[in-house]
């Protein structure tokens, strides 16, 4: 029942290596920028930086990354267990409700939780105070715990989906054998279930923690300072891009350590199984835990999906009830709502297509010629995730101006930033799509006289297309939400939905921002639904 796919005999194609190398060069653009700028830093600068709050902020970042990763693991695995392996009522409903928060950008979630919960100023504390007559201390969405809470709420679906899929594909007989061999249910979980879940969990945890490293907007809203804040301090006022680059280098190093750690932790273990013999494991009866479990799942989906959607809808209704606000929503300066919604769509779509196309040579190369260089390239494509959007944006400003000046000042630079930032998702999707493809198929094509390129076009591509589409949908989804790089790189007069939401919300015009935010969430649901439909658990 455990079948390990035989990797095809390593074959080295110079053309493929060259293409993959070019992609590697492209994704290394921010790294080159950081390197060049950091080298340009005055040694006195380094001295100066060491005297800043570097260590405190680094500690803050690591603490937050650890807390959010732990939170998402507990929430993600726990909820996936509930919906996949127990008799929780309404499982079909919860599968969707627990995955859909991915469509809500964390900064929008933060704005909503702030509006509802902030101490004294929030809707809930004020309502309670006017009802009871005295102030009730409520948990605050601010500071370390607030930031950890909000970020966990809007990132746990990554882990939920990955572990849900793993629970789902887990062969019943594995756990049954463990039980037959005398393991207790708990021992079975630790010794059999968890190891099988491990690859998915590690991938999810890595995604979450890399994201937190680069996080700035949401934590700034929630008044928690991370290492990105230190980078922003160097950029503002001093305009010291060298110092900012030195600090970004620290983040890149951290990201590389995490990626290396993931490789080590994944080890050589591969778990694949034949589809044929699969049957679902018997659901665990929750018994008297049924009600608490139901309440828990309800609470999570309320806080991460229904409340945000409800607030956005209520605000939008209020906005449309006011003629002035409606006018402002639909026309800002020379631009209308349709214009920036369209901008969002076409840039994200183009980025998705490009990211998938660029990920192909890297993934193919890593599969055909497994080796240090090809794996290095595949890993390199994932570092971009940990670099703050502003630094990616500034690196593109410099390098595009130097080498492709005609492109600068066009929306294509925004698309390039999306591709750079979201390459990790495309590469991962392409790699996993390729990994389930049996090499014998390609070998058969070669034996029948097809050339390498023909094999890719006629055999490989059609077979991995669904996986590629999934990668594209993920890039599309995250590009729609992208903010920091878009803010800086967009040509004058070019706005996207995310930019509009941010501009209005930071000026305090929440009602005006709400329709754009709601629309952003709704169009994000389309690619998300496509992704979910592919998963066994949503069929």
């Amino acid at each position, binding site marked *: 029942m455990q079948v390990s796919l035989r990797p095809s005999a390593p074959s080295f194609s110079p053309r493929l290596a060259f293409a993959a190398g070019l992609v590697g060069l492209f994704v290394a653009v921010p790294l080159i920028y950081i390197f060049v700028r950091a080298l340009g830093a005055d040694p006195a600068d380094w001295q100066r930086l060491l005297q800043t*709050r570097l260590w405190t902020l680094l500690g803050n970042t690591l603490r937050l990354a650890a807390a959010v990763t732990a939170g998402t693991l507990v929430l993600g695995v726990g909820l996936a267990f509930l919906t996949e392996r127990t008799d929780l009522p309404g499982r079909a409903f919860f599968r969707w409700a627990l995955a859909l928060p991915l469509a809500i950008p964390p900064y929008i979630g933060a704005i909503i939780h702030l509006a509802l919960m902030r101490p004294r100023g929030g809707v809930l504390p004020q309502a309670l105070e006017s009802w009871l007559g005295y102030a009730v201390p409520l948990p605050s969405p601010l500071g370390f715990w607030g930031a950890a809470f909000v970020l966990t709420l809007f990132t746990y679906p990554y882990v939920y989906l990955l572990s849900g899929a793993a629970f789902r594909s887990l062969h019943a007989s594995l756990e049954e054998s463990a039980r037959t061999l005398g393991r207790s249910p708990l021992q079975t979980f630790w010794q059999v279930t968890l190891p099988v879940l491990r690859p998915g969990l590690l991938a999810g945890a890595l995604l979450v923690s890399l994201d937190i490293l680069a996080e700035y907007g949401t934590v700034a809203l929630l008044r928690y300072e991370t290492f990105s804040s230190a980078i922003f301090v160097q950029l503002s006022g001093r305009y010291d891009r060298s110092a900012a680059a030195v600090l970004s280098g620290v983040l890149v190093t951290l990201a590389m350590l995490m990626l290396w750690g993931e490789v080590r932790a994944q080890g050589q273990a591969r778990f694949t199984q034949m589809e044929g013999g699969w049957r679902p494991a018997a659901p665990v009866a929750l018994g008297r835990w049924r009600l608490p479990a139901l309440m828990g799942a309800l609470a999570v989906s309320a806080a991460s999906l229904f409340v945000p959607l409800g607030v956005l809808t209520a605000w939008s209704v209020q906005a449309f009830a006011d003629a002035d606000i409606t006018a402002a929503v639909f026309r800002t300066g020379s631009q209308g709502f349709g214009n920036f919604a369209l901008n969002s769509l076409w840039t994200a779509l183009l980025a998705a297509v490009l990211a998938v196309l660029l990920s192909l040579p890297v993934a193919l190369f890593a599969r055909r010629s497994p080796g240090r260089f090809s794996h290095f390239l595949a890993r390199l494509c994932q570092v971009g995730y940990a670099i703050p959007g502003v630094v990616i944006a*500034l690196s593109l400003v410099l390098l595009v101006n130097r080498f492709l000046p005609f492109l600068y000042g066009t929306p294509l630079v925004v698309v390039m930033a999306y591709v750079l930032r979201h390459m990790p998702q495309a590469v991962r999707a392409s790699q996993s799509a390729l990994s389930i493809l049996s090499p014998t198929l390609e070998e058969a094509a070669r034996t029948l006289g097809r050339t390498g390129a023909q094999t890719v076009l006629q055999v490989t591509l059609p077979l991995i297309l669904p996986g590629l589409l999934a990668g594209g949908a993920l890039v599309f989804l995250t590009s729609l939400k992208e903010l920091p790089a878009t803010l800086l790189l967009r040509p*004058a007069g070019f706005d996207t939905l995310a930019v509009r939401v941010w501009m209005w919300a930071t000026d305090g015009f929440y009602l005006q921002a709400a329709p754009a935010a709601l629309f952003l969430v709704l169009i994000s*649901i389309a690619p998300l639904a496509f992704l979910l439909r592919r998963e066994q658990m949503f069929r």
Partner: protein
Amino acid sequence: MFKTISFLFLTTTLFLSACAPVSTPQVRQPEAPAHTPTSPEPTAALAETPAAAPVSGRLVIYSGRSEALIQPVLDAFRALYPDVEIALKAGSNSEIANALLEEQGNPQADVFLTTEIFTAQKLSESGVLAPYTSPLVDQLPADLRSPDGTWVALTRRARVIMYNTDLVSPDELPASIFDLTDPKWKGQVAAAGSTNGSLQAQIAVMRQLYGEEVTENWLSGLIANQVTFFGGHTDVRKAVAAGEFKLGLVNHYYYHLQLAESSPVGVIYPDQGEGQKGVITNATAAGLIRGGANPRAAQAFLDFLLSPEGQRLFAEQNYEYPVVPGIPVREGVRPLDEVRLAAFNLAEVVKDFDATFDLIEKVGLP
């Protein structure tokens, strides 16, 4: 479900493409061969005959001032020069300044509007700005314009303390910015953080007014007093209005903007007593970008900003202090000539701005 969603998705996309203006992705063509816009052509802006010379084409404006505040000014300018097509990029003052520094070899913008003078000075020193002396500049005091003509101040702001009138009674109000370090206000004060240009400028001015040590003690005192530092002043004013904090250190117009929302807020112009050094002011500024594609329109725009109409718009829309003498402040705004103003030499302050950041980093201001 999926079919319905994809159908909705498709139809909205189609709908949006149908109602969006045709010219979405515009590749910007250089409209004129690169040249330095120093030629003293007679510009359209000799205030009396604004629309005399044809000013047209695309005018790209980068703004550190928020879009909501600058849009009415742009609309008024468009009304005067209908042939000009305006493209605005508004954002964080410092981020845009960084972008301007990185895109220096391939300039995209024609004009940059900043939220304080130090950014303009820094860009001027780095060669990003082009000199232009508007015929209207003569009316301004010498310290509100760059000696080499690369930037000019547009409006002034006073650094004031706003308070929540429900939470603070008139007899306990602070009278000086130094009162903010009084333990009595511990945890009750909100301010903008170290990435905010207005606070940076205030610290720079304080170093000159009070000396390094006093300023350092003040900053450490704020941190020790658990002042909450926000990214910007909009958050500060809203938090004070909501009663989350009793006091907020802001630019004066944030008080007026909050008051316009009928919030329970009041304002103090600090350090007004005998022997005190007066309220600190700062200024927004504008400059033309060297190598900008449309210097004619840029010059006309700058002239418009300094014209009575432009100045009045800033005063009326955003409660700011016009730099051009004779333009009244908006009703309810305390005129600056009734206020004891801190006297400092801006040119000197600008010079050691680096030392200000050393201080900010030394005390570890968030």
